[in-house]
């Protein structure tokens, strides 16, 4: 995971949900990190196969603000630039296109969904169901509306210990008869709190769709549609004048309930359509003189009550078959809806009930913003209007699990697939998985502590005190590579720290076969026994046995497919020399981050275009030179403010 909070919240990766309780943790001790810049962030290099030219080493621009300038490759990359947050990734998050020979990041790849599945019951959902059923699990998997924990189905009558309840969809585990309820195993929320219980322990989703909070039945979208159809049929021919009493009886039971949004809309639509039909067949509707004149007074110019604009509006908001186009020229007015059967909903301005409830239940009775946001909009289908009211905990409904996906990824340039998981939900294998870690060297950082160094905590960076870090480059490919590094002499920002790479150019041996490793490793270990042992000390803290000192141009350590070099930094003082006062630090300004340009060169067989392919035995083939270059950022630590 990332250390810098900014990047944890990266929109494309952290699936949006670091909430108050998850985020409220103490800052962990600093661990050095390496982030790599995806070329997609720079439009000048994005389409280019050859890497950008290397900036000169120890080249510093006092003005870093203009490094958005695409033409100028000479600018060192500024990790503090606002845009950098969107282009820097840890190596594990990066993919690699073998055809473009370029790094690809989660932001630039094109994703394609392979499988939809429920993260709770792990059942695959066919994509055809998605259109009809929505993007949530329609079995019995729900999340708690209060704390987001999983809900379990349990028998109301004799469930013994809610903490040890059977998992849903396990009929044998619920031997008792109904009724059944949903219970949260974390916060002890129960669906009885909102007056909901079920007759069957399975297909809770379908049962819930038919229940309002409190237990009253509610119409599902499908039923509503059917009812509307019936209504249209029964009225279609007989509906002549706008006498509402004709079908009041039809809805008698509905009138008792609050008119919900969907019913209101369908009623209103039906009413207007019949009005239009009337207007078209029998001239101006019989009721037009009654209310039309009143409305016409207010909106006369806009003609809201004229059949023409009405049919236009209906066409905008519904996909219903368009009304008679000849009616366009017709001028006239129609009456408005008069009661709830025609879609009239009188705003309920009496909030005394809500106020009384607030008095009674207080703050705990209301919902928090996150609880409200977790509620699914579909769940409010058929519920009374929520607009302009306080939300009470008793209005919360169980949240069906959002489906999760397995996705394949394509290179944005050449459209080749660079990652493709197996379609089955329960397998974790990938058909294709071209990760950057198999192509470009990994860079690990640890503070270097020498026997004579007296710093008690090497991870604390003190202003103006030189600190040394060991960078270890590990080569994953089967060819030896040549690495060239470049950093600006001073880090960008208000507090420039001095940076010196002691050995900016070196070769790393090939990543040989695993068995070679086993055979050779023993020898190497024995040869370099001492330094290897010290290297193993946690973070190099215990490395007190080094016989050599870091020197310019010298590699610090070397292994089978890795090389360590030393970087020296002189952290900036966080005070301006002219000021005695500490300037107000902006976020992460005390963070010492070094932009570093890495250039990798290697030779590969012309035939085997793939970088990762084991070098062929055929020596006749000409070798092909390859190179890859990218910016990365080394996060070394935080500069302490004393000194």
């Amino acid at each position, binding site marked *: 995971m990332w250390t810098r909070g900014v990047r944890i919240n990266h929109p494309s990766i952290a699936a949006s949900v670091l909430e108050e309780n998850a985020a409220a943790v103490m800052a962990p001790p600093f661990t050095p990190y390496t982030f790599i810049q995806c070329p997609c962030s720079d439009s000048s290099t994005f389409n280019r196969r050859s890497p950008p030219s290397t900036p000169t080493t120890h080249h510093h621009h006092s003005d870093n603000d203009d490094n958005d300038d695409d033409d100028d490759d000479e600018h060192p990359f500024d990790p503090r630039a606002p845009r950098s947050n969107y282009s820097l990734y840890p190596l594990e998050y990066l993919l690699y296109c073998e055809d473009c020979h370029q790094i690809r990041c989660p932001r630039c790849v094109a994703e394609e969904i392979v499988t939809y599945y429920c*993260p709770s*019951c792990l059942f695959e959902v066919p994509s055809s169901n998605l259109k009809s059923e929505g993007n949530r699990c329609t079995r019995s998997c729900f999340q708690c509306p209060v704390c987001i924990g999983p809900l379990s189905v349990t028998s109301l009558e004799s469930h013994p210990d809610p*903490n*040890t*309840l059977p998992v849903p969809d396990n009929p044998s585990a619920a031997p008792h008869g109904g009724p059944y309820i949903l219970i949260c195993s974390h916060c002890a929320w129960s669906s009885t709190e909102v007056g909901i219980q079920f007759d069957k322990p399975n297909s809770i989703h379908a049962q819930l769709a038919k229940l309002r909070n409190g237990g009253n039945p509610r119409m599902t979208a499908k039923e509503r549609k059917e009812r509307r159809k019936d209504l249209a049929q029964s009225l279609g021919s007989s509906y002549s004048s706008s006498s509402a009493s004709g079908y009041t009886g039809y809805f008698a039971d509905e009138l008792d309930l609050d008119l919900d949004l969907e019913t209101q809309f369908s009623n209103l639509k039906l009413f207007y359509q019949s009005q239009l039909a009337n207007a078209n067949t029998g001239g101006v509707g019989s009721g037009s003189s009654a209310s039309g004149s009143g409305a016409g007074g207010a909106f006369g110019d806009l003609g809201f009550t004229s059949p023409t604009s009405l049919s236009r509006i209906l066409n905008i908001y519904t996909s219903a078959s368009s009304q008679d186009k000849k009616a366009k020229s017709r001028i006239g007015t129609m009456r408005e809806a008069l009661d709830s059967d025609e879609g009239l909903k009188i705003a309920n301005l009496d909030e005394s009930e809500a106020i009384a409830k607030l008095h009674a239940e207080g703050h705990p009775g209301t919902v928090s913003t996150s609880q409200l946001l977790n509620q699914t909009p579909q769940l409010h289908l058929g519920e009374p209007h929520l607009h302009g009211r306080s939300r009470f905990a008793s209005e919360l409904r169980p949240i069906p699990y959002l489906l999760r996906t397995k996705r394949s990824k394509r290179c944005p340039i050449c459209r080749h697939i660079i990652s493709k998981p197996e379609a089955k939900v329960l397998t*974790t294998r990938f058909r294709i998985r071209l*990760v950057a870690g198999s192509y470009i060297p990994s860079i690990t950082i640890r503070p270097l502590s020498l026997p004579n160094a007296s710093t008690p905590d090497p991870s604390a960076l003190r202003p103006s005190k030189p600190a040394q870090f060991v960078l270890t480059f*590990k080569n994953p490919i089967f060819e030896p590579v040549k690495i060239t590094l470049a950093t600006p002499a001073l880090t960008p920002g208000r507090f420039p720290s001095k940076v010196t790479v002691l050995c900016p150019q070196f070769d790393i041996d090939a990543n040989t076969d695993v068995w070679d490793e086993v055979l050779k490793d023993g020898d190497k270990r024995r040869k370099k026994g001492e330094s290897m042992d010290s290297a*193993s000390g946690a973070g190099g803290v215990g490395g007190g046995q080094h016989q050599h000192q870091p020197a310019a141009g010298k590699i610090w350590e070397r292994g089978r497919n890795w090389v*360590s070099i030393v970087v020296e930094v002189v952290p900036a003082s966080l005070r301006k020399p002219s000021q005695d006062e500490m300037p107000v630090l902006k976020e992460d300004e005390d963070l010492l981050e070094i932009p570093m340009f890495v250039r990798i060169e290697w030779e590969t067989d012309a035939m085997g275009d793939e970088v990762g392919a084991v070098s062929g035995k055929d020596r006749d083939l000409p070798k092909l030179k390859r190179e890859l270059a990218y910016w990365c950022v080394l996060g070394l630590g935080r500069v302490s403010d004393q000194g």
Partner: protein
Amino acid sequence: MSRRPPRGEYIETDTGNKVARKATLVGTQNIMLGGKTVIMPEAMIRGDLVRTLQPSPSSSGAAPNNTAVAIGRYCFLSRGCCLRPPGRLYKGLFTYMPLRLGDHVFVGPGSVVQAATVGNYVHIGAKVAIGEFAIIKDYVRILDDTVVPPNMVIPSFSIVAGQPARVIGEVPEGGHEAFELRELYKTVGNNPQPAPV
């Protein structure tokens, strides 16, 4: 069982398990170790909480399977963690059920695991509480201080955090290798090897 170095900090078994002498294993006859598993000092495993109700009486021809805790290969149980089988009422009677850990499972210091199953390549951070009968699939990373509620199912490639736990991210394609615990295994024991570069 050969105890090679007479007084090492660890007991190293023939199958390569490294069990700290200061680990607390109760009911060892019911704890199955797949091999190459490291149990650090002060880790605790409750092997004594065996299943009391056998699954199907019809197939009781063989000896009853009394495994309470089954652990795969290359697992790493850090200092102070605790593995215990989950228990629940089943048809009016209380019974414990076996706890199964796959291969390459890392359990962080101070964490308490009462899951039903933990898959392969799972990293459980420090001070994590995994509730009873949770099911954790493969390649899951559980961050420090997470509380996984009972019965929760965590699908593969999830990064999980919070109280209660929720999925906060996906394990990236390049992050699979980081779950591998072979190298960590070598760094512990009576003859610890240095960590590779």
